[in-house]
């Protein structure tokens, strides 16, 4: 049942039922491994989950994404569920395109996401759910995620959900970061460190695979 041909046929069938709302296009993140895996960058019109355990480089990826979108003069919304973003950790110049929503709990974050996802002015919406208590995340009904999926489909923005463990159901791409921060060894620039960042897709497939 789990043979590759069966899975491919099943995917083709599902894709025929749910055709993508718009042709896939991506917003480059500036992290080589992620952009290569996603075929150009974060896909627009859909949610992409980035699973990052502590110390695996999630915040570096987020900072790099801010830097890349800033260079492209694209507007970014960061919905920070745990209010953990440190503005002083990135250069001032990189923050000029950012709208930062500092939430106190998950409910606020999801409500803010619901509104900001409907706004067509953002190129990227980042929903950072790391360090939100697992009890709160487990209480979130799957209909909330389904709603965000549907909203994202109608908008030109790329949506990235940062989480500690696989969280978003029915997500097309779930990437797991495998970096390891250390004080020992050579002190690399952030760009150099991200060049070698191991990224693995625990779930997902390219749109081309569907048509293959």
């Amino acid at each position, binding site marked *: 049942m789990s043979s590759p041909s069966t899975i491919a046929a099943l995917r083709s069938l599902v894709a025929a039922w749910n055709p993508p709302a718009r042709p896939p296009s991506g917003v480059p993140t500036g992290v080589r491994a992620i952009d290569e895996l996603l075929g150009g960058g974060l896909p627009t019109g859909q949610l992409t989950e980035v699973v990052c355990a502590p110390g695996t480089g999630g915040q570096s990826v987020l900072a790099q994404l801010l830097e890349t979108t800033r*260079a492209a003069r694209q507007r970014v919304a960061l919905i920070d569920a745990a209010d953990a973003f440190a503005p002083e950790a990135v250069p001032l110049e990189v*923050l000029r395109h950012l709208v930062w929503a500092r939430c106190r709990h998950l409910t606020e974050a999801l409500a803010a996401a619901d509104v900001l996802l409907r706004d067509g002015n953002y190129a990227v919406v980042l929903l950072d759910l790391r360090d939100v208590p697992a009890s709160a995340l487990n209480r979130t009904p799957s209909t909330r995620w389904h709603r965000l999926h549907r909203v994202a489909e109608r908008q030109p923005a790329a949506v990235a959900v940062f989480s500690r463990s696989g969280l978003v159901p029915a997500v097309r791409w779930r990437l797991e970061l495998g970096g390891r921060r250390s*004080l*020992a060894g050579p002190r690399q620039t952030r760009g150099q460190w991200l060049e070698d960042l191991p990224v693995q897709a625990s779930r997902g497939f390219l749109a081309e695979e569907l048509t293959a």
Partner: protein
Amino acid sequence: MNFAVLLVPDFALHALRCSEPALRHQPVALIDGEGRKAVLTEVSPEAEGVTPGLAVTLAMARCPGIVLRPRDPTAETVSNRLLVAAAFSLSPRVEATTGGCCTVDLQGADPVKTTAALHERVAELTRLGLPARAGVGATPLLAFYAARCATPVLVVGEKNEFLQNLPLAFAGPTAEQAGVLDNWGIRTLGQLTALPKAEIGRRLGTDGVAMWERAAGEATRVLRLTPPAVTFAARWDYEPPIENLEPLLFKLRRFAECLAFELRGAGFVAQALALTLLLENETDYRREFSLAEPGTDVDGWLKVMHAHLETLKLPSRLIAAQLVATPTRPQVKQDGLFETGLRDPHSFWENFARVAAILGSDRLSTPVPSDSWRPDSFTLEKPAESVPAPAAPLVHPPRGGVLRRFRPPRPMLVVLENARPADLSGAVGGRVRTVAGPWRSSGGWWQPEGWAVETWHVELARGGVYQLVRTADGWTIEGEID
């Protein structure tokens, strides 16, 4: 084109229906008097067979489902404010003539633009539940006649031609005068004004001359000008007190529309809204909504207020509410050729305000780190309308990981070996493998709130890099280097 009149026929009835949407499509009549002496003054078109002046019992017999109500002075006041505000958008010289009637002095106005504006105002008032008509004429009286005949806007060009076939009742003859004129075979204003004014005066006296002048549309008068609104506020009471959001939102929309109309009429937009809810336990709840994009978009205002009110729990029932708009002049700007502005500024600022209502206005913005080494020191600024071109890349690109903060910093117990952290316990615990630091910084030492910190980076043996801070109060963990 010297004067315009905005007129709402059956004004009291329409005002009542605006304040009670349940009456919109029902047969309704306003009554005057009490008991058996009560008579109908205004009747909605849905009440078939019922006419003004009919006794209440007869009206109920002819139309069994008819709703009979006395006049509602509060509803009439609100609706009249809307009408006056609409009039002020045409000219600053406005007279609130009677309830449901405004006279506007159009001296110096562009006739083409004014006619277009009248059509717009009438359409807006009709959308708000006040089916208005507008007439324009050389005198206030002529404009009033035109408004009575308009469908929905009428500009009187040739006066005699317009008056020719109007019924005599327009000139307001007394019963005695009407009888005499009827005997003479005079039925229209044109027939009356065809008679010499002096002969009318000899036969009907000075009252007859006044009537002739009214029939000729010549009677003029000085307008009693209404001062334009200086403050933009509305207050309404609930009797009995309310417990639900729905009646509050309904009234809120009604009064917001009124304020938006007044603001537009005065050439302003709202930059902030202050909502005060008066409670039954003699306390009040106040909340100010600063609008990121100043404007008069009532739907946008309501979305912002609704988002906040949905999450609000009050300790007592609501007896009254007040809404105050802070006016400002509308912003006028021109975008640069190469600017990457907002695709939809209206939507951006509306959504921005909605999220600010959910989180609080101090928790949504563009962060700007302060010019200080003080930990977690930054300010929030309003997002830029356009994303500026990026500056030249940094000469020294950032090295190491990026801090992810724990807010507030968590207290830690730190065991030192050779004056360096060696073992942690608290929010994060474990043996320290590698240490970097300390980096010492201080500031404001000349002030009471001076600060001094010592920052360390530690890597634990089990993995993970963290930022520790030592102050005079002890050790805290500021965040994770990720």
